[in-house]
């Protein structure tokens, strides 16, 4: 097992390298002169030239890439000009908030989704199945930003049960109950689509597995139906559900961008959108690379868990 | 001149290189083997799963490139020619008739492909030829515009045979052509194959795991074990008086009406590991006659009696 983890980690190196190349290439697509874009109305020829030199933009592209990569490896992601702070500090701070939101949503959608899928499959064509299918259909069709807005209207504006937005109350907040009150609506809005997708997948995976010969064998051996479903069938279904959880984690992370905007959540997604709109490219670059790298590591964790789940995978 | 001559034909599948260390030597699916088949003959090839019989078949028709050795058909050496070159000389009938037919093409489209691609035949000639072939395999022409899923296993296998015939090959490799079929249908297909051979002067390579079937259809039989021929001889003699202990084991294992149940081999013996082949005879681990010599040196095919060759240091006497 240790060998397998090491192998996966080693194989992540080219992926991480590729990510930085892709990001770098995309960013060098930018038309015009970044220095002019950054300086805006302060752009005098001297200023532009100085900034270009400061940013290393007068060097050839390959050299620029390796300088950028080298800096990142030493933890230097550059400086955000719009916030006038080191990119890495901003990203770490914002990423923390995003992890709270996205992590909660991910746990929520995994549990709810699998549960709904299993219930749906075992009661195929029954009332519970139909009700779940209907809710799931709505869940996967409603945009998370619209759902978020509707939740705010209902629970914050009309019923006044929950705070409208933010992560902590401005006055007197800051403790865990306060965070949870702020977290409920955005986490739900963010989890909706992924829950739907996972529920559908779990349902069809369970239906597929329940038809397999080894389920018939378990029944022929007199194993109780509860064990057949929660043990034999779900165990195998998990093998096909697991990779999708990994993919859905990416979707949850992506959806967080919208939800952070709607709920004014101080996360990395909102930061990225703001950075794009203010053309703070170093912040965009640094944020994208950082989050993508975290996602790659997360997927390795998923692969390792998959390997523990399925002994047929060669380690 | 033999219809088919194979010399030192071998296939090794490379293995994935591990993260650290050198690449392993590879899995020997077919170890260097040589044999020939005369025109008009049926050579039966028997062996159990994993003995390399399908790999051999795929190399013979050009679907798989050998790692070594040569294939000669009617004196012409086929190097690494494409399946299109092989196709005019040697054709293949697949084990699973349904999966060898494209589910989304009509039987006519399936039949036309070899005529058009291999022989460049114009449309009227193609229609005539297809009609002839269909008549010869006892299929109605109305089947031509249907799709594969509309046919039973036996019918689909006849379509597979018809397609092989359409290429007008000299040799047909039959890879377990009846093992997916029920016995009552199996006999229909076997008899049809025997008619066609006589009518078109074909040469067959008949691959199967069923000894009774292979004996009923072949002139000569080659027994494969672990990627190599262990015995080859006349069909009517080889199972009646086998020289290699493995052939004997096979013959004794087949359930026969009227013979009482005896396990010819009590140990739970398993096939040798293709990634780590034993140094001597591959069968030594299962063989009661095995000696130190067997475990040290691999025996070669030697003449043992008339028209019979076996690879054994201590062959059975009769």
């Amino acid at each position: 097992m240790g060998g397998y983890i090491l192998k996966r980690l080693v194989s992540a190196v080219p992926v991480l390298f590729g990510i930085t190349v892709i990001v770098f290439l995309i960013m060098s697509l930018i038309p015009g002169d970044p220095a002019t874009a950054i300086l805006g109305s302060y752009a005098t020829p001297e200023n532009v030239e100085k900034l270009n030199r400061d940013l290393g933009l007068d060097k050839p592209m390959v050299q620029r890439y390796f300088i950028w990569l080298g800096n990142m490896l030493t933890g230097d992601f550059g400086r955000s000009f719009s916030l006038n702070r080191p990119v890495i500090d901003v990203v770490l701070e914002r990423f923390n908030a995003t992890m709270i939101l996205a992590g909660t949503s991910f746990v929520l959608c995994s549990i709810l989704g699998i549960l709904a899928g299993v219930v749906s499959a075992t009661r195929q064509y029954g009332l519970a199945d139909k009700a779940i299918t209907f809710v799931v259909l709505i869940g996967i069709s409603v945009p998370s930003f619209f759902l978020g807005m509707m939740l705010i209207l209902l629970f914050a504006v009309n019923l006044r049960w929950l705070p409208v937005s933010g992560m902590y109350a401005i006055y007197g907040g800051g403790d865990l109950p306060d965070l949870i009150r702020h977290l409920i609506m955005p986490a739900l809005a963010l989890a909706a689509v992924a829950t739907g997708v996972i529920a559908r997948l779990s349902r069809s995976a369970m239906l597929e597995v329940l038809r397999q010969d080894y389920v018939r064998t378990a029944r022929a051996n007199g194993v109780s139906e509860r064990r057949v479903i929660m043990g034999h069938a779900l165990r195998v279904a998990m093998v096909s559900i697991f990779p999708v959880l990994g993919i859905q984690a990416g979707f949850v992370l992506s959806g967080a961008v919208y939800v952070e905007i709607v709920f004014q959540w101080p996360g990395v997604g909102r930061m990225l959108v703001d950075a794009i709109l203010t053309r703070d490219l170093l912040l965009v670059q640094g944020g994208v690379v950082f989050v993508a790298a975290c996602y790659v590591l997360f997927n390795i964790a998923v692969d390792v868990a998959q390997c523990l789940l399925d002994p047929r995978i060669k380690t | 001149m033999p219809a088919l001559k194979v010399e030192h034909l071998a296939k090794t599948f490379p293995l994935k290189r591990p993260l650290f260390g050198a690449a392993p030597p590879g899995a020997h699916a077919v170890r260097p083997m040589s044999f020939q088949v005369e025109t008009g003959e049926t050579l039966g090839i028997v062996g159990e799963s994993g003995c390399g019989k399908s790999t051999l078949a795929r190399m013979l028709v050009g679907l798989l490139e050998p790692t070594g050795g040569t294939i000669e058909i009617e004196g012409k050496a086929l190097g690494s020619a494409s399946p299109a070159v092989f196709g005019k000389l040697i054709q293949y009938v697949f084990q699973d008739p349904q999966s060898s037919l494209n589910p989304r093409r009509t039987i006519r489209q399936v039949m036309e492909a070899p005529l058009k691609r291999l022989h460049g035949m114009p449309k009227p000639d193609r229609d005539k030829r297809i009609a002839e072939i269909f008549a010869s395999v006892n299929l109605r022409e109305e089947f031509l515009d249907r799709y594969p899923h509309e046919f039973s296993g036996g019918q689909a296998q006849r379509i597979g045979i018809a397609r092989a015939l359409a290429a007008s090959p000299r040799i047909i490799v039959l890879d377990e052509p009846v093992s997916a079929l029920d016995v009552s249908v199996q006999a229909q297909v076997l008899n049809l194959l025997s008619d066609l051979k006589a009518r078109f002067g074909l040469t067959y390579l008949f691959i199967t795991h069923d000894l009774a079937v292979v004996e009923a259809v072949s002139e000569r039989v080659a027994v494969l074990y672990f990627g190599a021929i262990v015995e080859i001889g006349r069909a009517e003699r080889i199972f009646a008086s086998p020289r290699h202990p493995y052939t004997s084991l096979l013959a004794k294992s087949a359930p026969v009406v009227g013979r009482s149940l005896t396990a010819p081999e009590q140990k739970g013996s398993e096939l040798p590991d293709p990634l780590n082949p034993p140094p001597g005879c591959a069968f030594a681990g299962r063989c009661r006659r095995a000696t130190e010599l067997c475990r040290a040196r691999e025996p070669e095919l030697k003449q043992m009696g008339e028209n019979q060759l076996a690879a054994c240091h201590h062959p059975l006497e009769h």
Partner: protein
Amino acid sequence: MSAFLALLFRNRLAAMGLAVIAVILLLAMATPLLPLHDPDVIATADRFMRPLSEGRLLGTDHLGRDLLSRLLHGTRLSLAVGIAAALIAAVIGSAIGIVAGYFGGRTDNVVMRGVDMLMAFPYILLALAIVAALGPGLMNALIAVAAVNVPFFARNIRGITVGLAGREFIDAARLAGMGHTRIILTELLPNVLPVIVIAMSTTVGWMILETAGLSFLGLGSQPPQADLGSMLGEARSAMISHPHTSIVPGLMIFLIVMSINLLGDGVRDALDPRLRSGALSRPRATTLVRRQGATPPATDDLLAVQDLRTEFQVGKRNYRAVGGVSLAVKPGESLGVIGESGSGKSVTALSVMGLVASPPGAITGGAVRFQGEDLIGAPYEALRQKRGDRVAYVFQDPLATLHPLYRVGQQLTETIRSHRNLSKSEARMRAIQLLNDVRIPNAERRVDDYPHEMSGGMRQRVGIAMALANEPDVIIADEPTTALDVTVQAQILCLLDDLRRERGLAIIFITHDFGVVAQLCDRIAVMYAGRIVEEGPTQAVLGAPAHPYTRRLIACVPELGGGRRELAAIPGLPPVLDDLPPGCAFAPRCTKAEESCRQGEIPLQGPALHAVRCLFPERAP
């Protein structure tokens, strides 16, 4: 095509989705022709008019622009951009996937590494990076959404292509002289196309949502042009005071995406052949019972199948798989049930303990009695307690019938503990003992193996050990050696025979092989088209078959030692089970059949020991 549409419309939800999206598409296309306000004319005096106001069906937005007009124009834009993105992604992604999947090897490796790299990004990061580089704008958003979806198509289509490229019909096409391009276009593409259509129909809604999302963030369409996303984005600041400006575009996105999703599911279900036959339904814990007619009285046999009828309802067709079968075994007896595929032998075996998959299967008549007690329609718990305890099964393919993720020891102990109050360690001891009993060498070590770590013969030994776990009275072995090599088969048959003699087990042995039954069974029942056509002691039936089918079937089987010869064959095919002829089902293939064979019920009759269902048996029994 018409069959596809019929299937699609039979799905009411899909039809509803189609209707809704058709209306929206029509409206969107007709928008320029409709008498609407100019969507971009600002009239600050009229801002935030409520819906249903004079001349403003949906009211106005924060700049006094007509919401209905903006909604329709926005819908038009959103649909156009979303569908365009889906098409671009599908074409490029599928092309990459097909090429990578077909050629395999290095091509595949390089291409898929690239795809994996793109998929290593949470998709929005890639989209944001692209928009950041190209600058905000609707076209750039379209490019970004298409680009992030290309890897999904590529990976999906590649998977399907790899499966197809390994199929034998591709080999056959190569042998027919086709080149790579032609094989891709004429052999692969028609088979991949439905998958591409499914992938598109299930993702186009998602892509519409994505472009709307980018516009919502202010990175897509730029003012004054507005798609649904940017309408929602602009309305957000006034959401609390004037919710209707948000709700209107939000609901529209929801409607579009939901109707497309419904339609997409319908398309998938209609195109996916596995769903077409209704196969993807969950088999219940026990077979459904819809018993008609009287239940036959109890007998003193150990296990008796009495006039059993099992049918499969697939669509409108009713397949009579088992049509009145009676069998019985006494303690220590071994009965062989022999027949070709479709004869109903396996269904009979599975019906005994209610293991026939239902739906679509149902037991419609007869009884199965274990020591006199009727098992058909018995409560689930009563049945479960006998399964694996009194009556145990050994199935055909041990790789498919053992659970792939549990160690064989776990599976054995579970079977034991389902019926006995043993501790885990006691059960494990018993499991090792059982593996020893079926002569697995190194049982203490093998007990912790997974099934995939064992050879076929070893796995089947485990299957037999599982059947023996609770010392049952009857073992039903359903083609237990068919998937095995002959040398292994001989070992397994010997093992079963020894165990039967040692333990006084009754065995029902289902097979298609006369050699196997001859060596193992005391009595034989021959099945054809769901019925027993002949039954009697093994020697009698094989030595002097009375039914023409039995006689001719035996003649079809080549025997070792017979030399090179012409084989006997039975012309014709077995009847289809949803349209059985009256009278004898074998009559159409029988040379002795007369008019009387084709009508009425023909009973299974003859002396008590050797009965035959034939009016003109081969020899008076």
